[in-house]
């Protein structure tokens, strides 16, 4: 093989360069055939579902009947949130396993439901109506962040289904009505969670990096026209080229995002001055724009609390509670409160037995839902006296069941059309939501 004469040692080094990657997952994978909206196989759980004796909510939100207007905000607690320090069972067993970590540095856990308390930082969202789905995980858990993140992103608790799209991306495919952007991730760029087949889903790092997309003048128009040409699909190119062209195409979609942000959104809308507060403030403005966003994802990093958990987890819970409460209030002021469900995910919970100053990788954990929800505990808490061989919690609800509840109960989308064949799709359906 020969190379052009201009190629030198330095360019060869560049070619070996810093890039790398596995085969492209550009969103062209296929799910199993859809089951055409047949809901007959879907039966809500008959017992043990509803919370009792929950701390009362002052003004519960009732969901809009107009299901076609419903929106979803997903806050991904990255690193593996310690569910047992989030939703805390009043258990002597837990106290034995957590000699150092159960005493919170600032305040005590606050009451929630019978036998269960909450991290005090979550009091603001408890008071606005908080539903907790207990023990969400998988039947054959793995200790790796990356393996478990992938399973949660793909909505495949087994890790065996070989899905090429993300669960949120498939929701967007079902919700897609040709809007400029159906699914949007803020703060960290693209996420596998939102890989879709046909809907437009994009990830935005810092929106202000795209200032040039809304500049006026002939040069900028020529730049945008050039990008449009570069971003158009070309026949017969490799998967990597296709991915690169669609990246350019997405760039132009960012311009629409920016153009749709009101100047008002820069003002004080009551969000905490944290990274999460900033992203959720943008999120509210974008949900309130004319982009057509239905699913909005915000990653929240830092939950891998092997060490210094008392301080670090405390701080993150306080941030989470304050930011989600601010988001709910802001959505209410925009008239979107009855349309918007807020949920959390996390790749796993943490080991019940502490390691002295923190906790190691665990399995199941609680899902938090805010908005038009039936407040209280849902499902069964994992049994602290029946841990698995690794000393971890045994999940009482599969991640697919958690997702099926969102798909069917919130959006009215048959679970079978967004989850793999044979996946467990029992969930709470519409019973989780306040209508």
């Amino acid at each position, binding site marked *: *093989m*020969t*190379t*052009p*004469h*201009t*190629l*030198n*040692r*330095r360019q*060869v*080094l*560049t070619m*070996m*360069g*810093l*890039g*790398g*990657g*596995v*085969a492209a997952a*550009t969103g062209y994978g296929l799910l199993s055939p859809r089951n055409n909206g047949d809901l007959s196989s879907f039966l809500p759980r008959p017992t043990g579902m509803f919370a009792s004796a929950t701390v009362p909510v002052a003004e519960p939100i009732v969901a809009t009947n107009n299901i076609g207007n419903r929106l979803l905000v997903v806050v991904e607690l990255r690193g593996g949130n310690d569910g047992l320090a989030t939703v805390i069972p009043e258990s002597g067993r837990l106290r034995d396993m957590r000699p150092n970590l159960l005493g919170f540095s600032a305040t005590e856990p606050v009451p929630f439901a019978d036998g269960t308390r909450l991290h005090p930082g979550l009091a603001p969202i408890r008071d606005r109506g908080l539903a907790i789905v207990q023990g969400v995980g998988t039947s054959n858990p*793995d*200790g*790796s*962040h990356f*393996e478990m993140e992938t399973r949660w992103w793909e909505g495949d608790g087994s890790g065996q289904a070989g899905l090429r799209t993300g669960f949120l991306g498939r929701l967007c495919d079902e919700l897609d009505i040709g809007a400029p952007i159906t699914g949007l991730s803020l703060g*960290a*760029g*693209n996420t596998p969670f939102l890989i879709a087949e046909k809907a437009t889903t994009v*990830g935005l*790092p810092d929106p202000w*990096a*795209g200032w*040039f*997309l809304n500049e006026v003048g*002939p040069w900028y128009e*020529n*730049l945008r*026209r*050039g990008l449009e*040409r*570069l971003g*158009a699909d*070309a026949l017969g*190119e*490799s998967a*990597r*080229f296709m991915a*690169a062209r669609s990246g350019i195409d997405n*760039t132009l979609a*960012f311009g629409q995002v920016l153009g749709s942000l009101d100047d008002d959104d820069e003002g004080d809308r009551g969000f905490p001055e944290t990274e999460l507060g900033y992203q959720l403030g943008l999120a509210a403005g974008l949900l309130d724009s004319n982009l057509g966003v239905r699913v909005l994802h915000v990653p929240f*990093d830092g939950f*891998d609390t*092997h060490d210094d958990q008392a301080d670090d987890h405390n701080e993150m819970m306080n941030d989470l509670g304050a930011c989600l409460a601010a988001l709910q209030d802001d959505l209410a002021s925009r008239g979107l409160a009855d349309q918007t469900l807020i949920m959390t995910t996390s790749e796993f919970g943490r080991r019940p037995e502490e*390691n*002295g100053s923190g906790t*190691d*990788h665990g399995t199941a954990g609680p899902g938090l839902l805010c908005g038009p929800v039936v407040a209280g505990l849902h499902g069964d808490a994992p049994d602290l006296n029946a841990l698995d061989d*690794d000393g971890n919690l045994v999940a009482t609800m599969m991640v697919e069941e958690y997702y099926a509840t969102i798909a069917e109960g919130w959006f009215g989308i048959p679970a079978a059309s967004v989850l793999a064949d044979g996946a467990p799709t029992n969930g709470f359906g519409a019973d989780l939501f306040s209508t």
Partner: protein
Amino acid sequence: MAHRPLADVVDETLADIGDRAVGLDLVEPSEDAEDEVIAWWFDRINDPRTGLHERMVWYWHGHFTTAIDNVGAVLMWEQHRLVRKHALGNFRTLTKAMLEDGAMLVYLDGDGSQGEQPNENLARELMELFTLGVGNYTEDDVKAAARALSGYWVDWDTAEVTFEPAEHYDRPIQFLGSRSRFSAADIADALCDQTACARHVARRLHRHLVGVDPDDNHLDRLAAVFRGADLEILPLVEAIVRGDSFWANHRSRPRQPVEWLIAATAALGADNIEFDPWELEVSGQVPFNPPNVAGWPEGDRWVGGSQVLGRISHVLQLSREEIIDTNIEPTVDAVLERCSIWDISDATRAALDGAARDQPEYAQRLELLFALTLASPEFALA
């Protein structure tokens, strides 16, 4: 256009690995000197005297990940010296050194881990990411290794690492099928002896240098070379770069932002520009600060929309600072030549020709052609 045989260029690259000591003694960071350390390294990466050695320093920084945000400049710098020393040395030696490195111990919570109640973080990532890969060890192996890696304490101020035998778990453990007392170095040896280790490292490095995973046959060959060389790193690199897959996968390697920026500034004629390294943040990549323990993410992420956004922003900023070499003809061919793109696709060529027609004015046309060429798939994929 005259052509040179590829083998010559590869020979030249492998023969001249660059000056591994360039400027190493110039910096002795204080605790709050994070920006200084990052800027220093960025300048080294960008220094034409560096070569393959610097590439491998970059690779190992992502393989044995540690983030300066978590450990601070002093510990990070000590680890960097260690990586520079072993980047083209021996993998077993490097692994052993890493298990006693202060930055690694702090980053993955080995610091202060006690034998009776060990922290599993370092043990797990050591096996999952650094040596074996998922599926080649059990949860019990993770727990056992965590015990064997206990007993280390790190002094954050001096970067000194001490071993406290009393805190180390010194009873026998069952690890990877054998029962014995294990020190940290014994754990490294046991891992490096596994056939899975050579395969895992060869696969990761191939993915890094070539952009895709090697097929099974090629991976077998690479792992055999690596093992045959007692885990010496240079023979593995050489086998990858001389392998058929290296050229067969031309333009399959997404350039990471740091690499893109270096290539772009060179193309623009701005070789010696100074950067505030945190400006790189908008592109998602600051040296010494990978997002998590898996190091720099791979795959299509680096050609996604957020990357294009950051890149064009950068080009526009550079051109505003008037650093584009205005001696370059504002023609598509001249700009492509500057950007080392000799295999342009029809679609990209058409887009650039269209832009040249749209923008008749001389200086503005050059800027537009650069912005679009540097945003193109050809330039995003090395």
